[in-house]
């Protein structure tokens, strides 16, 4: 397969561009998605190519422009709504959780909601408590939403194309620390299906499930651990709703150990949910308790000296795995 080197942000631009070209009903709206090309440069060039109607700069009215996207989705368009920071999801929660998630079900299956809501997660930029959260658990909790957590640039591209083509509301989380990183991405057109986890590395001693770029951190940790003869299997679930439980269950049955790494808060979080949702199937295969590595239950602080200690990273994964395997 021929590949090219592009950044994560460029992969997003390519995905949206390809889908806007493919289907004239795909539109993009949100704060600064137009002339500026997106706060994270993930929509560069689209305004120039498709014009101000299909690529719409909105006022700072998250709840209402999300509702506007929903209304457009109900009446024939396939909108992509960008919510600049994941933290701002909380401004739009009525339209996301009470409206977009519910309209199909409440109407007895009459409505289709082909709406993609792109937003961000992740700390590490000294953006403090209102611009650094990873709120995937918040939307996973609400039935009726699909939730996507892509890792690398090739993943973000294939999964975003699938999200845009999906006839359901999809919350698509992009990791802020990834936008400027360069990856190998296939030259040819491709999509990645939802609900199919990706095994990044095979191993027999422990399973590490990492969401979003924690899958990549887990992979790096696993490579170091391999030199110390600890064979970790690394799984990127790709989508949290739907969740490919089978791949995780089969892996844990083989390894007997599971560490789940997610940048969301620990309490009522994604890591705890994944653990509990598979526990019954793997209980008699476990050699150790399932563990989770998440962000501590505190607001993200500003200073790097305070922020990095509470976010999962490669080193913390390495240390935790060693402890789980060797003791």
């Amino acid at each position, binding site marked *: 397969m021929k590949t090219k080197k592009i950044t994560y942000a460029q992969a997003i631009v390519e995905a949206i561009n390809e889908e806007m070209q493919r289907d004239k009903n795909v539109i993009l709206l949100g704060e600064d998605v137009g002339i500026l090309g997106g706060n994270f440069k993930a929509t560069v060039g689209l305004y120039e190519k498709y014009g101000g109607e299909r690529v719409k700069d909105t006022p700072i009215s998250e709840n209402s422009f*999300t*509702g506007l996207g929903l*209304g457009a989705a109900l009446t024939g*368009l396939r909108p992509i709504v960008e919510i600049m920071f994941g933290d701002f999801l909380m401004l739009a929660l009525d339209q996301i959780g*009470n409206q977009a998630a519910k309209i199909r079900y409440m*109407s007895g299956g009459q409505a289709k909601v082909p709406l993609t809501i792109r937003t961000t997660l992740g700390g590490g930029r000294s953006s403090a408590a209102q611009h650094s959260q990873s709120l995937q658990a918040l939307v996973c909790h609400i*039935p009726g939403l699909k939730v996507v957590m892509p890792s690398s640039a090739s993943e973000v591209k294939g999964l975003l194309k699938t999200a845009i083509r999906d006839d359901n509301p999809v919350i698509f989380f992009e990791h802020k620390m990834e936008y400027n990183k360069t990856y190998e991405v296939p030259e040819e057109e491709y999509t990645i299906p939802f609900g199919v986890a990706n095994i990044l590395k095979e191993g027999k001693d422990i399973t590490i499930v990492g969401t979003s770029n924690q899958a990549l951190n887990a992979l790096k940790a696993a490579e170091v651990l391999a030199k110390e003869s600890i064979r970790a299997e690394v799984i990127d679930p790709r989508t949290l709703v739907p969740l490919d439980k089978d791949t995780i269950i089969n892996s844990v049955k083989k390894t007997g150990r599971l560490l789940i790494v997610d940048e969301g808060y620990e309490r009522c979080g994604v890591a705890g949910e994944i653990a509990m949702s598979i526990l019954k199937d793997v209980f008699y295969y476990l050699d150790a308790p399932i563990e989770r590595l998440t962000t501590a239950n505190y607001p993200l602080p500003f200073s790097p000296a305070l922020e990095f200690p509470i976010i999962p990273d490669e080193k913390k994964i390495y240390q935790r795995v060693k402890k789980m395997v060797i003791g």
Partner: protein
Amino acid sequence: MENKFKPIKHYGLDKEKVLKMYQDMLKIRYFENKITYLYSRGLMPGLAHLYIGEEAIAVGVCTNLTKRDFAISTHRGHGHLIAQGADLKKMMAEVLGKEAGYCKGKGGSMHIADFSKGILGANGIVGAGIPIATGSAYSAKVRGTDQVTISFFGDAASNQGTFHESINMAAAWKLPVVYICENNLYGISVDIRKVTNTKDIATRARAYDIPGVVVDGNDVLEVYKVSQKAVERARKGEGPSLIECKTYRWKGHHLGDPGQVYRLEKETEEWKEHCPIKTFRERLIKEKIFSKEELDLIEKNTKKIINEAADFAIQSPYPNENEVYEDLFVEEGGAKTR
């Protein structure tokens, strides 16, 4: 409120249309009288918010719509749905939580929709329909159609952020949407005059530089005329309008709320004298457009239609329990996402 009306011929409507408007108002009134009865008999689960007294607004506005237009409703939605031509049997069955209902019993009174008719549905969250209607209008603009969207909401919704955020966008982008504020004076128990300094909500249109009009919401023909102008303006691509319809809900906030703790009986009685149906009937007879006998017959026929809808709903079975697990997502390939 005063019973001052212009002659019906002033509005340039043919007899057939006038009669349809009268009958649509009757349908709404009788439909809600019927569910009040079914509720009192214990045949209706949950509750419903009644539109009785406000019928002229839905009918006056929707008379201007084509089959391709859209409207989004509120928690007090029966009137808007009926005026848009929703199927009365399916509506009644949904209100009773039956399998044959519009939403197969999953929505109830507050979530009835008919997407095949542009009826984007009732909505349980105050003010939440306003951005959705605005998006529907945006969609028509992007798709290059001349479809208009009506956004119905109450006085209380005009104090939600969505009202201001949405009208701001619609005005900035000249979207084909008409905002219809049904000012019935009370948000549940709270008198709008106690929580809002603006005498007329329509004056808020000035803040967004769009037309804002106050109209007697109990005069179906005035509502028709004022909204016609707004619909035409929207259809021509000239942008949104805000119409405030002054009205009154005769009943409590919902079935079971007598609605009298927070209101004076005198006020309610005065508004009942300004009944949109009774006054229209009097005008039709006085102006010799229809005879008393002709209208009696229409009333009798309409009652029959409503009774048939109720019988249909009562006889329809409750949904199968497995229905709970259907319709969450559009599914492809059979694998269920939960």
